[in-house]
């Protein structure tokens, strides 16, 4: 951008409104979710009953086992189970 006037600057500030807080929080929690994911996958590999429960109702089983069924975690688990 070569020249600035106040109208242009204000338009550019307005061009980036905040993303919804919940989306930002979920993305920030990704590393924690991934740590939980590794734990869940390891357990599912070792425990056939747990694996079957996850496949039958992923969200409910996660909640029952004390994991927050956040969307990125759920989607990643679905992807992994579909691949395996």
């Amino acid at each position, binding site marked *: *951008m*070569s020249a*600035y*006037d*106040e109208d242009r*600057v*204000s338009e*550019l*500030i*307005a*061009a*980036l*409104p*905040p*993303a*919804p807080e919940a*989306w*930002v929080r*979920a*993305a*920030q929690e*990704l*590393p*924690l979710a*991934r740590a939980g994911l590794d734990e869940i996958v390891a357990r599912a590999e070792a425990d056939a009953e747990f694996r079957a429960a996850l496949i039958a109702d992923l969200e409910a089983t996660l909640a029952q086992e004390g994991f927050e069924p956040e*969307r*990125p975690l759920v*989607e*990643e688990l679905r992807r992994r189970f579909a691949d395996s």
Partner: protein
Amino acid sequence: MAQTVPAAQLVARCRQGDQEAWNALVERFSRYVYAIATQGFRLRDHDAEDVFQEVFAKVYERLDSLRSDEAIQPWIAQLTRRVCVDRIRAGSREEPTEESELAADPDEDILTRLDEALDVHDAMVGLPENCREILDRFFARDESYRTIGEALELPAGTIASRISRCLVKLKDQLEGRNQLAAQSGGQVNA
């Protein structure tokens, strides 16, 4: 964490598993990714949310493959564009319409404008906290004088003049960055 830490430094710290740095990186680029999806590609909220999460998941997984930490912004932009296009194409396979085909071509003028907007937001980091907050609340969050006055405990009658003074400061900040960039032969990033 203050936004004054250069993005490249955040990337390096994220690679070492620094959660605070990851939080700051997401915070830094969240508006940009959101705007590319909703303004550049005009995705609806549900699709934009999926794109948003997928982009940050890919950033997290692929940080090690980033060749230069300084290239984080164009890398995120490129990644977001790809994820948006994939999402639109997947949608149009399920429900083919002429409209969805057109949407896979983003509005390049808007995307260029978003890059400029990110530069402006980066420059805001150099402003005093009160200026940064008042400009963000008024322009980006679209809050009224009254709401801003209540939140910041300021008389509503003084908000307009404060905004005007802060805009002048920001303009000076941007012009200073451009002069620096011209002297160093490149663009200055916060």
